[in-house]
């Protein structure tokens, strides 16, 4: 049962991400990316990590992609405005991406032999357990991430205030 759901969601995320890459219209790309996020959130639910799933939706689909869509709508991109790439660039990009693919395949091929920790708690994704482990085992990285976000927020406010001399 859960294998079927996993396969459907996996297929959906692959198809949507491919559509996201291959669509010409940037707004359509954004919408396919949102659908990809949804299928990934479904995977989180399958892994019993509802908290992660809903936070993933709130942060990525609900906030970041909205801003993407904002920018795209205001820029009004279309095929005429797209800069023409010369074929030399295309060749270079193809070689670079191909090498990345080889690297990724090589890395993942080795990764299968890695031993996954067997005794990991299946309920670690629930909000309570996740909170406990964030505030006990991982408190330093958690706080550092918090400071990082705070710095980014302060920076954004400062950038928005144009008349302030830095």
């Amino acid at each position: 049962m859960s294998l079927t759901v996993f396969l459907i969601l996996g297929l959906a995320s692959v198809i949507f991400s491919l559509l996201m890459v291959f669509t010409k219209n940037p707004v359509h790309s954004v919408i396919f990316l949102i659908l990809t996020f949804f299928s990934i959130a479904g995977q989180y639910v399958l892994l019993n990590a509802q908290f992660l799933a809903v936070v993933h939706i709130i942060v990525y689909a609900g906030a970041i992609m909205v801003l993407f869509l904002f920018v795209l709508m205001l820029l009004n991109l279309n095929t005429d405005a797209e800069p023409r790439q010369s074929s030399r660039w295309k060749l270079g990009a193809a070689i670079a991406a191909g090498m990345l693919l080889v690297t990724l395949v090589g890395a993942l091929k080795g990764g299968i032999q890695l031993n996954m920790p067997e005794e990991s708690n299946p309920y670690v994704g629930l909000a309570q357990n996740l909170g406990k482990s964030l505030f006990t085992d991982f408190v330093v990285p958690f706080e550092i991430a918090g400071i990082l976000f705070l710095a980014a927020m302060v920076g954004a406010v400062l950038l928005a205030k144009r008349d302030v001399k830095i």
Partner: protein
Amino acid sequence: MSILLLYDIAFILEKSILVLVLFVITLTVAAYATFGERKVAAFIQDRVGPNRAGPLGLLQPLADGVKFFTKEDFMPNAAERWLYILAPGAFMFVACMTSAVIPWGTELTLFGLNVQLQVTDLNIGILYILGFTSLGVYGIMIGGWSSNNKYSLYGAIRASSQMISYELAMGLSLIAVVMLTGTLSLKEMAIQQAGINWNIWYQPLGFILFFTCALAECNRAPFDMAECETELIGGYHTEYSSMKLGFFLFAEYINMFIACAVIATVYFGGYNFPGVDPGWLGGLMGPIVMFAKTFFFIFVFMWIRWTLPRFRYDQLMHLGWKALIPLSILNMLLTGAGVLLFEG
């Protein structure tokens, strides 16, 4: 194996019927909210209001629906065809999804069966609601953009930036409640507020903040920037007509209904009322109390709409960013101190 399967089928059937009933109730309430809105407006402006269709005008929503369906369905030439069609559907879908985690009552005893009056008790219920509210922006943005009309685009940008801004204060004011109750599940929140032990007594500031944000999230006056006729014609749905427009308007009423139900659940005890056991009448008392509270808040929403004039856009943004967010952070700190003092 077969017993398990039978149990599964019974479970799926029970939940499907519950979803269907809830869906019908949501649509009916939303339809009659349009009627109620006009009646309340008439009452406040000392008029009679709609009273021609059926007894006391009670068939007015039906007449409105027929009107929406039979109007010409106009599609602008330059519109992004599929997105233009998708947007109202997406908006409606998101509006209908949120009611799944709201506990309408405890248990209903029907033909010897105990039916839980909540579609699903997610352990992250309140985040689920926030998540779907944050998705509501897409219907508006895509609809406004795909119409290919500058007024629609401006309306969409205004409405969505308003929703994004107020979502922050909304989430922050809910965090205080989560800190107080120690749970994200709406069911547990309702259970904890038995009798008159409602969260409003501990979270008065949080309630005011949440209520204001809910008004803004539902695009209701005094925050109905999206439909600021004098500046923006009709806002993001300027180019929509027929039932596509109907979907947008209807979904706003559904949003209002759900927002009021969430307010009732989170701050006003949900299905609890002092001296009333939600299990009375075979469990029907819970939903009755819950709906009474919800309808009261819908009435307050309408009352505000017909009393207060619309804010200016910069005032709206000032209120959101410079008043509500700092206040909700303050509320969070106070709640944290209170929890530490009295419970720690």
